[in-house]
């Protein structure tokens, strides 16, 4: 008997291995770290390395002490800082998603209606920014937005302004950064949806008395609903936990949960509190992820 035969005796098949691989990946790089974070979130803070006390302690004399500490979670709800940071993150993510919708829908629509040859070029342009690092692109925005940056220089050279506009370290700069970075995640699923659309439906609507904008509102928009939802979730979910862009462009007042998490972890070395923040953030996003999943399932099932 060969090796494959031996393996099969223990219930290992090629198909099983292929299926097991992604699960193994998830187990190693998601479930295990998640359990560690969960464990830390229930620990006490300690001035040690690592800076928390173990959950399970062997006291000797046949006794084991398990101490589950909910204080970290309770603490998050007593200090307004955390609640505000959560609410602000959701607000920022929501506004960013709406802005992505307003900017991204016409772009996705335009690409889907373009000639096949132009379409590929336009799609390439959407994906092109991914070829450079996000950090680099965000730093480039600093160069554009700062007081003696490109935009202010051009505007004052044109005589539109006399004093430079304050753009950097404002909510404006932060939204510019987030919308710019996440736009492709909105455009691509929406494009995939619009590309499948039967444009003759619009002719049928016009034939039945719709002006072009009415046909868009009554036919295209409802039919692209799943694409809009998928794109929105892909922007909203990561934007809630966004750290780099608000930190670099939003300045010190941009109180977002990602920033709070960073501060707790690195500045305060309050690992248990930081872990509790991370767990809460995850719980907050789970319903959105489930919704996204069901939208995706519906989309691939073809039912609208």
């Amino acid at each position: 008997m060969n090796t494959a035969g031996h393996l099969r005796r223990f219930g290992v098949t090629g198909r099983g291995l292929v299926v097991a691989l992604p699960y193994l990946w998830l187990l190693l790089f998601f479930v295990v770290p998640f359990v560690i974070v969960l464990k830390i979130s229930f620990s006490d803070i300690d001035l040690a390395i690592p800076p928390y006390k173990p959950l399970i302690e062997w006291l000797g004399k046949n006794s084991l002490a398990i101490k589950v500490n909910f204080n970290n979670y309770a603490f998050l709800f007593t200090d307004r800082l955390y609640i505000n940071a959560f609410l602000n993150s959701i607000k920022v993510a929501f506004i960013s998603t709406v802005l992505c919708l307003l900017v991204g829908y016409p772009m996705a629509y335009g690409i889907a209606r373009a000639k096949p040859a132009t379409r590929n070029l336009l799609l390439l342009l959407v994906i092109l920014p991914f070829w450079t690092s996000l950090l680099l692109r965000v730093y480039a925005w600093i160069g554009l937005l700062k007081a003696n940056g490109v935009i202010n220089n051009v505007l004052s050279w044109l005589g539109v302004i006399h004093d430079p506009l304050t753009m950097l370290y404002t909510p404006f700069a932060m939204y510019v950064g987030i919308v710019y970075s996440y736009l492709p995640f909105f455009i691509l699923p929406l494009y995939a949806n619009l590309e499948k659309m039967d444009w003759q439906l619009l002719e049928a609507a016009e034939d039945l008395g719709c002006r072009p904008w009415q046909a868009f509102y009554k036919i295209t928009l409802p039919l692209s609903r799943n694409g809009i939802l998928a794109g929105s979730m892909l922007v909203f979910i990561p934007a809630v936990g966004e750290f780099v862009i608000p930190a670099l462009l939003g300045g010190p007042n941009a109180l977002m949960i990602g920033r709070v998490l960073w501060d707790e972890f690195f500045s305060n070395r309050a690992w248990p509190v930081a872990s509790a923040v991370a767990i809460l953030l995850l719980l907050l996003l789970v319903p959105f992820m489930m919704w996204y999943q069901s939208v995706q399932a519906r989309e691939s099932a073809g039912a609208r």
Partner: protein
Amino acid sequence: MTTSAGAAGVKAAPWKDPAARPYVQVDHITKSFGEFKAVDDVSLKIYQGEIFCLLGASGCGKTTLLRMLGGFETPTSGKIFIDGEDMTGVPPYERPVNMMFQSYALFPHMNVEQNVAFGLKQDRVPKPEIEERVATMLDLVKLGGFAKRKPHQLSGGQRQRVALARSLVKRPKLLLLDEPLGALDKKLREHTQFELISLQDKLGVTFVVVTHDQEEAMTLASRIGVMDHGEIVQAGTPSEIYEFPSSKFVADFVGSVNMFEGKLIEDEPEHVRIGSDELGGTIYVSHGISAPPEAIVWAAVRPEKIFMSTAPPGGTDNVVRGAVQDIAYLGDLSIYLVKLPTGKVVRVTQPNTSRHAEAITWEQQVYLSWDATSPVVVTR
């Protein structure tokens, strides 16, 4: 194929009456896409209550012409009048015209009822009236029990009827149908053809139908316009098109035909005689034609108008001998391919009138003959 049932909706034959007012008038319409002329200087008059079929192969410009009637394409030059009004530049949503699309273009996110009601809602028809008209229309197309179904829950035939109901519920002056039965199987198509005719008769709407299927055109149409390379090469009733084709193309496109090339050897006002090397004999036709003497002409003889016999028939004109090369038994009739000594293969159809007929078999020598009234002589 007999005369069309579609003519039922038209009272007499308004196209023969010079005083009759055309309902749709297409006036020297041309549509170019770059260098390519999809529709080339077409003029056409369609009368109220007609089912006018535009028949042609794919790419002949029939769909482009239909789309210009619907307002989906703007003509490069020429004008379109509907009910006396110039509609040339009017957008689709302002035309008293509805279209049934080849793909049906049913709105997938709406159920049958909502699809049919769409156009009426758009026109702000009062709600009770919408409900009543939609229900009546769904009953008319026999979809009364399917109002709440989504298009993807329907069969092809049902979708076709929803599309029809949706385009008729607005009571258009003119209904355009793009290959209306193309997606249906043969049995259903035949059945639906007759339903379509009776529906048209009941509602009195003028139909313009685009089809590539000559049988469909013959069944539906009051008149057929045969199109080729963006032009209407002949327009007439189905029997005119079939029995009096004006060119080789029409004779060949509508039905099957045996075409014999020959030279005019006798040209009298009431008969002509054609000497055909292809046939290996002479063809006597009992009507005069207008062509110069010695001109090259074509005599078209339909397969069902050729008699086949084992004994020689009398006379020398319109008779030829050949050997049966192939037989296709179709049940109601049989097709024989008879090879002449010249090498030309002639197609003959014979109805199988008797169950135990003495069959003509392969390789058998037969005589083919036809009446002097049967051939149609065309000069181009």
